[in-house]
């Protein structure tokens, strides 16, 4: 097992809505190893983005964060702003779904890249321009020198996402958190961006956390997957296990609900019901009301994640039966 880079221990997030406090994240335990590619999947509102926004202290003030985020032995939760700012971008960089709203529309690409180079690497003037050009080359933007003078609206969505990746690379981070990086892009452009992320990871050895609602995207680009449901990790396993022998009923349900592109057409098996609201979770296992295998005990207490095999954790009291 490679050395751990970031460890989340019992990470919780509570949002204060003014009327009451709603818990969005119920204790996330997650290790990211150096150079690892980890996928985080789940439906909207399951907490996959909030996990990393909380870890980097990027949530609004109404959010109360508990637990620990350990980076090289230092806890980032409650750390002073100066320390967080040394981590963001420099050790852990993050890119988001919609690149054009992450870029400043009134500044040229070159200036925005130069800003992160000045901040993280202390470069300015000609050195920053040269490095910015090298970064655009690195993300395969043709004619990089000229593109530095372009504004974001002059570039397409795919190109803007490449610029965002170049900005993330400016700090030479150890971990890149990509939050639905291709969701807003067309299929052929998505393939280009995912290929680029894989290539950068192989060359630089940085770790990647890929947040996605698309199991296919995660399957092809990561080694390990955590499936999240209603603010908890319900299954954490190597990619072959998730797709070959999924154990949590929710993971099984997600896979059965997906159509395939080859083989005979089979009827889709939807998961009954809908995702509960964070303010209104059922007692016990949050998935129990939608679960076909639920028994009375499922509604009594929240299942604790147990290790079934090496590197395979499942939070389901019937997990060992399911496997048999």
């Amino acid at each position, binding site marked *: 097992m490679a050395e751990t880079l970031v460890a989340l221990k019992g990470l919780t997030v509570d949002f204060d809505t003014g009327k009451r406090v709603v818990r969005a994240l119920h204790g996330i335990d997650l290790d990211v190893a150096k150079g690892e590619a980890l996928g985080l999947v789940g439906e909207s509102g399951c907490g996959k983005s909030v996990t990393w926004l909380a870890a980097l202290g990027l949530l609004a003030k109404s959010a109360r964060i508990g637990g620990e985020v350990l980076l090289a032995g230092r806890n980032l939760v409650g750390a002073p702003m100066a320390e967080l700012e040394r981590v963001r971008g420099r050790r852990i960089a993050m890119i988001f779904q919609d690149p054009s709203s992450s870029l400043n529309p009134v500044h040229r690409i070159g200036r925005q890249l130069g800003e992160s180079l000045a901040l993280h690497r202390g470069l300015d003037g000609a050195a920053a321009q040269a490095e910015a050009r090298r970064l655009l080359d690195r993300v395969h933007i043709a004619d990089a020198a000229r593109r530095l003078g372009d504004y974001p609206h002059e570039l397409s969505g795919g190109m803007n996402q490449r610029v965002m990746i170049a900005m993330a690379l400016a700090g030479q981070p150890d971990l890149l958190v990509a939050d639905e990086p291709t969701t807003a892009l067309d*299929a*052929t452009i998505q393939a280009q961006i995912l290929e680029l992320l894989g290539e950068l990871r192989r060359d630089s050895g940085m770790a990647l956390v890929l947040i996605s609602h698309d199991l296919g995207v995660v399957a092809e680009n990561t080694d390990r997957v955590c499936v999240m449901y209603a603010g908890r990790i319900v299954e954490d396993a190597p990619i072959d296990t998730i797709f070959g022998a999924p154990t949590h009923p929710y993971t099984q349900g997600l896979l059965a609900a997906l159509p395939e592109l080859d083989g005979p057409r089979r009827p889709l098996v*939807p998961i009954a019901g809908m995702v509960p609201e964070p303010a209104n979770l059922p007692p016990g296992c949050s998935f129990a009301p939608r679960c076909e295998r639920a028994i009375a005990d499922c509604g009594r207490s929240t299942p604790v994640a147990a290790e079934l095999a090496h590197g395979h954790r499942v939070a389901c009291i019937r997990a060992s039966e399911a496997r048999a």
Partner: protein
Amino acid sequence: MTALLEVSDLVRKYEVRRGTWPFGKGATLHAVDGVSFQLDAGRTLGLVGESGCGKTTTAKLVLGLVPMTSGSVRIAGEALPAPGSMEWRAMRRRMQMVYQDPLGALDRRLSVGRQVMEPLAIHGIGMASGRRDKALATMDAVGLASHHFDRFPHELSGGQRQRIVLARALILDPQLLVCDEPISALDVSIQAQVVNLLLDLQQRLGLAYLFISHDLRMVRQVSHDVAVMYLGRIVEQGDPGRLFAAPAHPYTRALVSAIPVAKRGRRRRLVLAGEPPNPVDRPAGCAFHPRCPFAIERCRVETPALRELSDGRRAACHLAEELPKSLAA
């Protein structure tokens, strides 16, 4: 037998100006450029392609929501009446549209029941009490309970809202539903519920669907026939099983190979260089040739026509029969 929907040589052009007003030259944007297809009652035609390829414009042209530049649309043998006319309004009863974002398609200040009944009032069908019963029956058919009748859209989940939109479209007993990305805004576990509902309704009511989506897997799941569009034209059309298993057009190949698969076993991927060109700058010859790894000289000069191949499908590519079988280019 006459097809329910027969579209031939549909064209929609927009006059645009290149550059900043008042400078720049006039130019023509071909949003839809000679699209023809047929759809029989009770069948589904899937329309796929990337953003800006003309899928949605085609759908709106079919319903007369966007006036066409030229071409013809025939519904059960009759030409589509002039949009806005009385005849067109009567015709629209038989053809309804379902949009991607249900919250945007619903009125937040009207109760679910009011919205589902509204089409009956617009078309002057039935009496008030009968309308309520009809609405409840339609809501039941799409899996909504009677207690949803007095609720408001924001009180329901995304999947339920899409069911309201469906109920509102179905209350007029249409023959054709044009579904523009009907499930893209929904979560994976809910998408399967809505797709199964669409298939079930088709079986029970004999509906025809024009199903627009960028999700090839869902399109394969629901369609009897699939058309792939690129820059306003159909580049390949045929049976979904064959089309996705062995695409004939290089663009279809790239689309299919761009889909990440959940099953392990990474395939060789045909990653296209570049991005779709601006429809104003439609490349000469085959519009796809600048991105095509197989392009030859002829592709730069001569626009390939959509022609029938030996296995019954249609493709617009000079090299359709000669391309290497493996995906690696």
